[in-house]
């Protein structure tokens, strides 16, 4: 016994000095940084087209500002970019600007002190609010009254994409499918599968990642509730007749095997393994040469006219990090990159919608040449995003877990699962 204690003590003694070695991270002097200019670095998602845009805008800027050079780095797109940003904030290794901020994770990064309030720069509030219009306030602090830690940059409004060939094969009207109600949507789905036109009607990714609700439940929920977000005024909203109706519709889809419970091993849309999917405008570039597609607004219980349907924005925004030592350059560059000219180029290269008002009238040439995108531009005026709350990822994860059990796998009753998880999330939000 005695040797054991001695060994434990020895072990403790070995580790002790190192516990003290972890306090070397130096903070940036915010006041000096806010008026300083110089070289900066930015992170852009690895998405090919976005990267091309980023490099182009940096090149244009660098040509005019030799002493304030912008360097472009890539952060991986998809599920793991949030982790990379979180870790970098904690370690103080963030760049000056990040062009890939998910609004769901943002409040936690603000709380961690990793981002800078953009309204501390002259003219920033005007730029953001004149560019984004009334929607911009959804991305501001204090229910829209406070500052901006993110510049609402671009959205990918979610619509229902369908394969015309499969629709025709199933005997549906491919030009005017009119699936605006849940009943019509379900009937058409049954017809697609029973006619053998396709193995499944729609194939949202059924895995448990926290962000998956954004491409199945949430767009339909926003449409059904005319834009009520998952949480409003500090309380969950989905344990309601509207929320339950959307969940039950999806449950029917899975129960009747109109939607598979397993993740597709390839792109089900291209291979014709499914007839529909919820997608943003980026899908056009993917499927342009592969299938004959059409788009329609997402369905609701009783059908809402297309011109009034609200959908999920799926926006990505830009933030200025508190590690920035040349914040004035960073802000100037951000304003430059989100001005009318470069927003137009973003639209051209990526097909994603800059979060600015009156897209169609600002870029008439583009939409004339690319009529496919017009419906998205039109839809981009009526979008809602994730709620602005701390612990967003945890909340979405809990929601997804409950949804997975009750809706996708039909293990629990939807009513019980939603009641339980909304109680849990309410408690989280209160904290």
């Amino acid at each position, binding site marked *: 016994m005695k040797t054991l204690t001695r060994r434990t003590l020895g072990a403790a003694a*070995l580790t002790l000095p190192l516990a003290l070695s972890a306090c070397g991270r130096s*903070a940036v002097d915010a006041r000096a940084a806010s008026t300083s200019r110089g070289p900066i670095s930015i992170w852009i998602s690895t998405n090919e087209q976005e990267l091309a845009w980023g490099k182009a805008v940096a090149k244009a800027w660098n040509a005019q500002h030799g002493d304030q050079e912008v360097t472009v780095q890539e952060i991986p797109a998809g599920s793991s970019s949030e982790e990379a940003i979180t870790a970098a904030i904690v370690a103080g290794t963030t760049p000056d600007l990040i062009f890939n901020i998910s609004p769901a994770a943002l409040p936690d990064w603000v*709380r961690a002190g990793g981002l800078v309030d953009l309204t501390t720069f002259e003219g920033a509030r005007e730029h953001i609010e004149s560019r984004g219009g009334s929607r911009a306030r959804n991305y501001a602090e204090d229910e829209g009254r406070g500052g901006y830690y993110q510049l609402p940059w671009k959205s990918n409004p979610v619509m229902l994409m369908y394969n015309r060939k499969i629709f025709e094969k199933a005997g549906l009207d491919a030009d005017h499918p009119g699936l605006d109600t849940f009943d019509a949507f379900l009937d058409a789905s049954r017809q697609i599968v029973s006619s053998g036109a396709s193995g499944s009607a729609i194939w949202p990714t059924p*895995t*448990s990642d*926290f962000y998956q609700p954004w491409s199945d439940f949430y767009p339909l929920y926003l449409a059904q509730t005319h834009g009520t977000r998952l949480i409003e005024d500090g309380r969950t909203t989905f344990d309601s007749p509207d929320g339950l109706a959307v969940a039950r519709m999806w449950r029917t889809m899975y129960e009747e095997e109109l939607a598979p*419970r*397993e993740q597709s091993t390839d792109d089900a849309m291209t291979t014709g393994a499914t007839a529909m999917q919820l997608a943003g405008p980026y899908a056009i570039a993917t499927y342009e040469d592969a299938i004959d597609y059409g788009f329609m607004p997402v369905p609701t219980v009783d059908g809402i006219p297309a011109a009034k349907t609200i959908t999920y924005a799926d926006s990505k925004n830009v933030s200025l990090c508190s590690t920035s030592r040349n914040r004035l350059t960073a802000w100037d560059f951000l304003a430059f990159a989100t001005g009318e000219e470069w927003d137009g180029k973003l639209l051209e290269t990526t097909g994603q919608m800059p979060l600015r008002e009156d897209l169609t009238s600002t870029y008439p040439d583009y939409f004339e040449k690319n009529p496919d995108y017009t419906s998205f531009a039109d839809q981009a005026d009526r979008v809602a995003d994730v709620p602005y709350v701390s612990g967003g990822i945890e909340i979405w994860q809990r929601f997804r877990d409950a949804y997975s059990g009750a809706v996708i796998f039909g293990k629990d009753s939807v009513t019980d699962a939603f009641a339980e998880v909304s109680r849990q999330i309410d408690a989280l939000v209160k904290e």
Partner: protein
Amino acid sequence: MTTSTSVAPTSTPGLPRPATRDPWWRRLLGKQPLGLGMSLPYIVFLALVMAYPLGYAVYISFFDYVFTAPGVHADHPFVGLANYRAVLSDPRVLDSFGNIAVFLVINVPLTVILSMVLASALNSLTRWTAAFRVAFYVPYVTASVSLIGVWMLMFSDDGLVNSLLGPLAPDPSWLVNSHLAMPSIALFVTWKQLGFYVLLYLAALQNVPRELYESAQVDGAGAVQRFRHITVPGVRSATLLVLVLAIITGSNLFTEPYLLTSGGGPDGASASPVLLIYQKGIQQGNPDLASAIGVILVILVGLLSLASTRLTKED
């Protein structure tokens, strides 16, 4: 140069010395302080890369903790066992421990039995053993990232395994069936790791004297008896090692649920505690809860390893 030659004779290290008191540094550092010097890089490594972050993790499991940017102050109030209470009352955390129990119940016995049987079969043969060994080891030397790509195709709904089974294929399919997701992962890991354990057993079998088998054969013992009464007891120390290693690697299961059944599988049926640590600590910004799960996991693994040590010793 000149100084060293003149100094050397006065402190000849090899010669036996009169039994005087050791110098102070020898008393402090032990008889052969060179050992400390040689271990120093490893000690520094353990302290920096393991002990310090682990100590930090244990520390924050008792606080209401959030990570902050450098220079940003945040309150980290001491909360005692609140984080532990929170995770222990979270059904998903409990489920994840249950999942890992299912995993271990399938994986550990299967690993021990299969690797022991395969190793002793290989050991009794004289030809073709190299080819067999290579076949058993290759999954072990291959990155799971690349094997998972293959398994996903083989075990998907319209995958190879199901088309072989035809009407016998499970519905829902393997990886999305909440009863089969964890067993599928357990099978995958068993297959992937088995070669290493076969190697350990083959090594241990070299120490079991051949004569024992020969004399047992003369006594008329059959293959099964020889296996039970000579092989099994003869490789007991290897069995202990295999058990402990299989328990430790199994309890730290992460890659497979993360990639094979992304996000923890159907209704969380293949979520492992380490996957939750990853989700809570890194994705969701709750390092305090993640650390509490981690501490509980480490304690449980320690207890399990201890128990298996006892078990194989007494038997």
